[in-house]
C-alpha cells in the first residue's frame, strides 16, 4: 500500500526516470547490436581475431559493473563527458558486447558445414552464403544473446544513476540513502517490469524473424 501511495504521489517523476532508463539502455543496446553482431561475424572467419576478441570481452565482463562505471569517469572526462549519460551508455555497450559477440560467433560457427557446402556448390558468393544461409540459420542464437544483453543492461543500467545518468537507479540509490523503503521497491520493481516487458517484446520479434523451418516441432 505504501508502494501504491508512493506511485500515485510521484508518477510524473517515475515516468521520467523510466524514460531515461529506457533511453540509456536503448541507445546502448542499439549500438551494441550494430557493433557486436558484425564483430561476431568477422571473428567467425578469423580464428586469431576470435581468440583475442572473446578474451577481451570476457575480461570486461569480469569487471564489477560499479567499478566499470567508475573507470568511465576519468577516461571520458578527457573528452568532457566524465559524468552523465555518455559514460553510462559506453559502459553498457561494453557489457552488452560479450553475450552478443559470443552468441553470434558460436551461431555462425555452428551452421552445419554441409549446408554451407550446398550453398557454395550451387554458386552462391561468400556474402550470399552469409546473408542467405548462415545469418538466417544463426538468427535464433544471436537473438538469445541479444536478449541476455538487454535484460542484463536494464539491470546494470540502474547503477548508471550513480554517475549521474539518471534512470530508475536514482530511486534505488536515493531510497538506500534515505532508508525510504517504498522508494527502493518502486525503483527495483520498475526495473524488473521493464526487463520482463522488453524481453517479451524481443521474444515476439524473434518469433517473427526466425524461420518457422528452424523451430522444433
Amino acid at each position, binding site marked *: 500500500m505504501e508502494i501504491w501511495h508512493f506511485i500515485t504521489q510521484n508518477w510524473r517523476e517515475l515516468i521520467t526516470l523510466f524514460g531515461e532508463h529506457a533511453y540509456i539502455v536503448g541507445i546502448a543496446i542499439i549500438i551494441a547490436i550494430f557493433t557486436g553482431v558484425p564483430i561476431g561475424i568477422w571473428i567467425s572467419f578469423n580464428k586469431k581475431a576470435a581468440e583475442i576478441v572473446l578474451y577481451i570481452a570476457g575480461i570486461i565482463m569480469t569487471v564489477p559493473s560499479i567499478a566499470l562505471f567508475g573507470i568511465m569517469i576519468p577516461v571520458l572526462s578527457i573528452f568532457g563527458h566524465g559524468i552523465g549519460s555518455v559514460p553510462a551508455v559506453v559502459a553498457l555497450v561494453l557489457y552488452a558486447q560479450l553475450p552478443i559477440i559470443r552468441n553470434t560467433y558460436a551461431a555462425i560457427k555452428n551452421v552445419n558445414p554441409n549446408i554451407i557446402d550446398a550453398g557454395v556448390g550451387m554458386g552462391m*558468393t561468400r556474402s550470399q552464403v552469409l546473408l542467405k544461409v548462415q545469418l538466417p*540459420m544463426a538468427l535464433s542464437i544471436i537473438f538469445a544473446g541479444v536478449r541476455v544483453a538487454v535484460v542484463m543492461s536494464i539491470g546494470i543500467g540502474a547503477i548508471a544513476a550513480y554517475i549521474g545518468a539518471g534512470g530508475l537507479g536514482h530511486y534505488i540509490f536515493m531510497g538506500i540513502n534515505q532508508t525510504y523503503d517504498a522508494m527502493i521497491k518502486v525503483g527495483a520493481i520498475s526495473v524488473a517490469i521493464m526487463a520482463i516487458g522488453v524481453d517479451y517484446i524481443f521474444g515476439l520479434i524473434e518469433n517473427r524473424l526466425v524461420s518457422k523451418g*528452424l523451430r522444433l516441432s
Partner: protein
Amino acid sequence: MITFERVSKIYPGTNIPAIDNVRFEVPEGEICVIIGPSGCGKTTLMRMINRLIPITSGVISIKGQNVSEMDVIKLRRSIGYAIQQIGLFPHMTVYDNIATVPRLLKWDKQRIAARVDELLSLVGLEPDIFRFRYPRELSGGQAQRIGVVRALATDPPVMLMDEPFGAIDPINREVLQDEFLRIQEKVKKTIIFVTHDIHEAIKMGDKIALLETGRLVQYDTPEGLLVNPKNRFVKDFVGADRALKRLDLLKVKDAMMQNPVHCHMEDDAEVVSQHMLENELTFLLVADQNEKLHGYVNHYELKGHHGKVKDLVRPMTITVKPEQNLKDALSKMLSYDIGIVVVVDDDGKLLGVLNTRTLLSVVGETYDERGGVWGKITSRGRI
C-alpha cells in the same frame, strides 16, 4: 563431355596423392558412377569439377572448356549439385530451396513458380501440398527428392551428385533410383554420381569409374566390370556374387523364350486337348486373335469338354514386363513359388515366357570362371 586429363590432387600437408594421375572421359548424356572403398578419393575427384576443391595438377574440362579458366561462380551455377538430404536449407521452404539457383540467375517470379511446380510434379509431389513446407516437415525420401530437383532447377547440362540417396533405407532407395532413372531418360544429363554401394553403381551407371587409393583402376560399363574385372581388386570389390548382380542389368526380354506355345480363345476345346495330350502339356496359355493374353487352361479340365477354350480359361494374375530386370522377375517367381512367369507388354500382349532354367542359363553364360561348360549332368550317381 567431361574429361579428366592427368588429374592429381595432393592435399596440403600430405605427401600421398588423394587423386593420382586420373584420366577418363564421360560422354554427354551418360551417368558416370564414381565408386571405391572409403577414402579412395571419390568426393575429392567430384568436388574438383566445380572447384570446391582446387586441383593440384592436370586438367578437368567440360565441353572442351578447362574449368580452371572459367569464372568459378558462373561455373558452379551452371552445374547441378546435389548432396545428402542434409544439404537442404532448413530455414527455407521447399519452394525457396528449389528457387535458389534460378534466383541467383535472376529468373523472374512467374518463371520460377512455374518451374517449381513442374519439378515437384516430376517427382510425384503435389505442388499445392509441398510447395510451402519446410525440410523438417518432409520424410527422408521426400527431402531427397527435393534435393535432386533443386539440382535440376535451371536444367543444367551437368550434374554432380555425392551419395544423393545415401541416407535412405534400402527399399525407398530403390524407389528413388528407379524414379531418377526415369527422369534421366527424359532429361539426358551428364551426371557424375558418387556412391559406395556397388548395387547402386551397377544399376545407375552407364559407366563406372572404380578408384583405389586415388588411382583409377577400371573405367568400364557395369557389364564390363562384372564380366571382365581387370584384376583381383576389382573382382573382390564387385563381389563374389557378381553373376547374381548381372540379374540387375539384364532385362526380361534378354532372357525370355519368345513366341511360346499357346492357343486362342475361339479354338475348339477337343482339338486343343488332343494337342496337349500329344505334347505332354499340362497347362497351356490362351490368347485372343490380337495375341492378347487371357489366361491359361489345364488339360484336366479341358479334356472331354465340348465347346470353346474360352469357357474354361483361368486368369493369369502374375506376369512381368519385358523391360523389367531379371532380378525383379526372379524375386516374383520366388515369392509366388512359380517356376514360370509369362511376359506381356503394356497392352497385355503375350510376348514370351521366362522360367528358372532360361533365366539361370543367361546369367551362367559368363559365370563359369574356368571358361568351360560342364556338359550334361545326369542323376546317375557314381560312375
